[in-house]
């Protein structure tokens, strides 16, 4: 497909989205329900990634350091 401008390309992408999800055949109000549900879910996912991913990473790092590096250290402290 050749596109004249970005707008046309976006319109085509939206059309593909309509076709693949099947909401092409729905009535406009049903389309808007579907879109708003989908977009709110996506927005939530993005927001929570922003909030939780750093915590995930920190927790995971801590966990692994404790598993591999932390063990001898603790025995050492016990012994002294």
């Amino acid at each position, binding site marked *: 497909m050749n596109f004249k401008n970005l707008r046309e390309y976006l319109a085509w992408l939206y059309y593909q989205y309509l*076709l693949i999800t099947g909401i092409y055949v729905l009535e406009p109000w049903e389309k808007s329900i579907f879109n708003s549900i989908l977009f709110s879910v996506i927005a939530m996912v993005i927001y929570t990634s922003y909030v939780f991913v750093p915590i995930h990473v920190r927790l995971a790092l801590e966990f692994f350091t404790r598993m591999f590096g932390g063990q001898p250290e603790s025995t050492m402290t016990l012994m002294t």
Partner: protein
Amino acid sequence: MFEMTIFLYLFFFCQHFTMLLLLLYICATKLFGFIFKCIGLKRKTAEEYDKGSIIKNPNVPHNPSLYKKPFVESFEETPLMVAVLTYMGYGILTIFGYLRDFLRQWNIEKRHIARERDEQKDFVPLYQDFENFYNRNLYIRIRDNWNRPVCSVPGPKMDLIERSTPNYNWTFEYTGRVLKDVLNLGSYNYLGFAENKGPCADAAIEATQAYGVGVGSTRCEMGNLDIHEELEQLVARFLGVESSMAFGMGFATNSMNIPALTGKGCLILSDELNHASLVLGARLSSSTIRVFKHNNMQSLEKLLRDAIVHGQPRTHRPWKKILIVVEGIYSMEGSIVRLPEIIALKKHYKAYLYLDEAHSIGALGPNGKGVVDYFGLDPKDVDIMMGTFTKSFGAAGGYIGGKKELIDYLRCHSHSAVYATSMSPPVAQQIITSMKIIMGEDGTTLGADRLRQLHENTTYFRRKLHDMGLIIYGNEDSPVIPMMLYMPAKIGAFGRQMLKKNIGIVGVGFPATPIIESRARFCVSAAHTREMLNTALDAINEVGDLLQLKYSRRERPLPSLGWMSDESLLKD
């Protein structure tokens, strides 16, 4: 509160995890693709695909020696991603279907459909099965693609009445305008005999002037005209059988004659994709029905063996008759029956064969005499040759051909012979004239030209579609060309987009096909000129890009230098 946070946390963790996996998957496929490209591994070629796993229904003939020419038939497997997305699409539409049903239930939304009356509300619900749900909530939404009124001869071009709908396809209104010269890729007009002028139409007019249109009685009583006798003799000669009989309707030919041939204690072996008329006939006959896999000879042979070894259930008496029921060209798949193998099996196991040539008569074979002619077999090997005049002959009705005893028996036992009004004379005359043209008995080569043109058009159209990367099903000689669309929304979108380009096509979905294998079905005709086909192909190419229909994973030839160079290739 704490549990709540943990729960939310877990929920989003799962989501992140799946998203991460998806990303990883995409990266990995891209990376592997790149590596394969670098180390020179190619994708499989078409031949490898044909041999290998990608073909859904390999059907390797176990006896290739029976075929006089290569039998090339392909059903490319649905790409996994497309299948998943299609199911997802149906899932979303089903959810909205439930929502709408709910709204209708509580009278929030106006109901346009039939429903139970209040007095019936404690009885078994009438409209809750899947087919009703499907019709109400999925089919209705794209219904504008079907049942369009045609207001001219449905030849290669036709005129359509324009419709509009005020309420999303629940009702239609005529706008008073006509869509002129829409290219017709949907009629079963294989030899182009759907005409309002020319020798057939003239002859039909003469017949009307001589006999009128209505007959007003059955063949047994006052409805047996000399024109019917002439028609039956001609059909018998055309088919190369001893005797034949014509009926006023093709559907009734199947559904009323199978019950006359088999009954209790008989076994019908039926292909899984047989036409509704054959299925109805088999059910009405009260024989036992067993279904074999589409065109699969191993499956048929197994059923035959079992039938002979075990006999009837419980009593274990041998079956009175075993009738194999198949079609010539399957109208939804575009596949051709493996007749040489079936005849070999039938002879080996001493079964009878009922062959429905509705789509193949006139459209296949060097002389247009159907699949028997196509494979170069002897028509006497097929016990019951059935066919319709609706397709290639541009008329109406059906016939049965076979041994004289068979036809004499049917004349007094078939419901559609005894109780149905006989064929209208102009229709009979149309068949006689067109059949004579096909046989070359009118002293011209018009019939041979049409047959050649149909074959050329079929090969050209199929090859072009294939080269575009569309998935098309069926045998390479079949003029019925199903093109896969898969996703439910694409049936509607394809029909509408093509009509915008002034081309009329037929979309097919559930229940005529399995739920994920929605398709568009093109029927090529001898009346299509090369320009028309090129217009259609250009439009299909464009719409195919727009809707992303080029699913095929086979290797495609490099884009050529345009139509011209291709045409010269075809002539070689």
